[in-house]
C-alpha cells in the first residue's frame, strides 16, 4: 500500500502562499487557520501527485488554465446553505437598503429582487420572510422576488420547499412555527412564502440567456463568483451590472469582494456590511 509522505509546509512557504492567495482573492488567512489551510493544501498536493509543496506551488501558479488554483479555492470555501445564512445582509436589507431603494422609485413601480444561485431555496425564502417580518415598506410597495439556478434538480427541490431541521436551525422558533409545518422531522414551508418566489433556470455566463434578467433593484449573488475563474468572474460582473437598475445594490458572499473583480460598483457600507451599488446617474 502506498502512502507517500507529504512534506510539511514550512513557515516561509506558507507566507508566500498566503500572500499569493490574498493577492488573487482578497482572502487573508490568519495564522490561526494554519491547520485548516495546510490540510487542504495537502489534499490538493495528493490529488495532483505532488509530494513537495514547492512542486505543487509551481504547478498551480503557472498553469495556464488556472484550473488547479480554482480547485484549491473551491476546497478552501465551505459552502453550506441554510436559512438566514449571513443574516447581517438581510438585516441591512430591511433596516436601510429597502427604504433607500423605495425612495428612488416612483409610486406603483415594483421593487425587484434577484437571488442567484437559488440552490435549494433557502436564500430567496429567507429574503421573503425577512421582508414580511421586518420591512414596513411592504405595506405600500410591491416586491417581486425572482431566483435562478443552473441546476434544474436543485430548482425542483427549491419549489417544493421541504427542509431539514439543520436548514432551519438559524431561524427564531416563533418564525419557524409561523412559516413552516413540521412533518416527520422535516419542515414544509408555507404556500404563501413558496408562491412569493418565481424560480427560473438560468446560466449567468450565457449572454443571451441573461438578457431577460433586467431591472433589478437588489441582487443577492452569494458564494457563486468564488467558484469562477478570473475571466468568468469579470464576465459575470458585467451581466450583474446589466441586470441592475441605477442605484441598485448587490450583495456578495462574506469572503467575496469586488476588489478582485470590478471597479464599476460603488462601495457602500451599512455598519460593517458591504454592499455594492450601481451608480445612480449614467456611469460612475
Amino acid at each position, binding site marked *: 500500500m502506498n502512502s507517500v509522505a507529504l512534506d510539511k509546509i514550512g513557515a516561509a512557504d506558507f507566507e508566500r502562499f498566503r*500572500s499569493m492567495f*490574498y*493577492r488573487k482573492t*482578497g482572502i487573508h488567512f490568519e495564522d490561526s487557520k494554519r491547520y485548516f489551510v495546510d490540510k487542504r493544501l495537502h489534499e490538493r498536493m495528493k490529488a495532483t501527485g505532488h509530494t513537495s509543496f514547492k512542486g505543487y506551488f509551481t504547478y498551480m501558479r503557472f498553469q495556464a488554465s488556472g484550473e488547479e488554483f480554482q480547485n484549491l479555492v473551491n476546497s478552501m470555501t465551505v459552502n453550506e446553505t441554510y436559512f438566514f445564512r449571513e443574516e447581517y445582509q438581510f438585516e441591512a436589507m430591511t433596516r436601510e437598503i429597502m427604504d433607500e431603494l423605495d425612495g428612488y422609485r416612483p409610486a406603483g413601480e415594483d421593487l425587484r429582487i434577484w437571488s442567484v444561485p437559488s440552490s435549494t431555496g433557502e436564500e430567496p425564502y429567507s429574503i421573503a420572510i425577512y421582508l414580511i417580518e421586518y420591512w414596513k415598506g411592504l405595506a405600500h410597495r410591491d416586491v417581486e422576488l425572482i431566483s435562478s439556478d443552473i441546476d434544474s434538480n436543485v430548482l425542483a427541490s427549491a419549489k417544493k420547499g421541504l427542509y431539514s431541521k439543520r436548514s432551519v436551525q438559524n431561524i427564531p422558533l416563533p418564525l419557524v412555527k409561523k412559516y413552516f409545518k413540521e412533518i416527520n422531522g422535516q419542515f414544509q414551508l408555507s404556500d404563501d412564502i413558496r408562491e412569493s418566489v418565481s424560480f427560473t433556470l438560468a446560466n449567468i455566463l450565457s449572454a443571451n440567456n441573461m438578457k431577460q434578467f433586467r431591472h433589478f433593484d437588489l441582487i443577492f449573488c452569494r458564494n457563486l463568483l468564488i467558484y469562477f475563474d478570473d475571466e468568468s468572474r469579470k464576465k459575470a460582473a458585467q451581466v450583474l451590472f446589466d441586470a441592475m437598475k441605477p442605484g441598485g445594490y448587490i450583495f456578495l458572499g462574506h469572503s467575496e*469582494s*469586488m*476588489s*478582485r*473583480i*470590478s*471597479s464599476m460598483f460603488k*462601495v*457602500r*457600507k451599512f*455598519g*460593517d456590511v*458591504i454592499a455594492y451599488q450601481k451608480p445612480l446617474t449614467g456611469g460612475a
Partner: protein
Amino acid sequence: MKTVMIVDDASTVRMFHKMLVTSPDRIIEEAENGVEALEKAIGTNVDLFLVDVNMPKMDGYRLCKEIRLNEALRGVPIIMISTESANQDAERAYQCGANYYMTKPVDADTLKSVVSAVIGGEANE
C-alpha cells in the same frame, strides 16, 4: 491610537512602508487596491492614507477622489506615492485631493517625518 492605511498592490512595498512607519501607538491597515481600501476604510477610523498610484481595478487617483466624496473620510490626509516623476503627476494628485506627493523610491526619513508630522508620534527606530 492612530490608524494608517497603506494601499499598494506590491506586497513587499506594503511591508517596507509598514516597517518604516510602525510604532506602538499606530495601527497599520493594508489594502491591495482602491476598491479594497474603500471596503476597509468606509465606516471606520482612518487617520492617514498612503496611496500608490498604479494599482489594478481602482488606481490611486480614483481612490483619492472617492475618499474626498465620502462624508466621513473626506478630511483624512492622503500621501500619494508614485513612480511617475513628472510635475504634472503631482498636480494631478493634488487635484484629486492628495495632500502630499512622493516619488518612488521613497526616502525613508522623509516618509517617517511626514507621517509623524501628520499624525503625531514617532516611528520605531
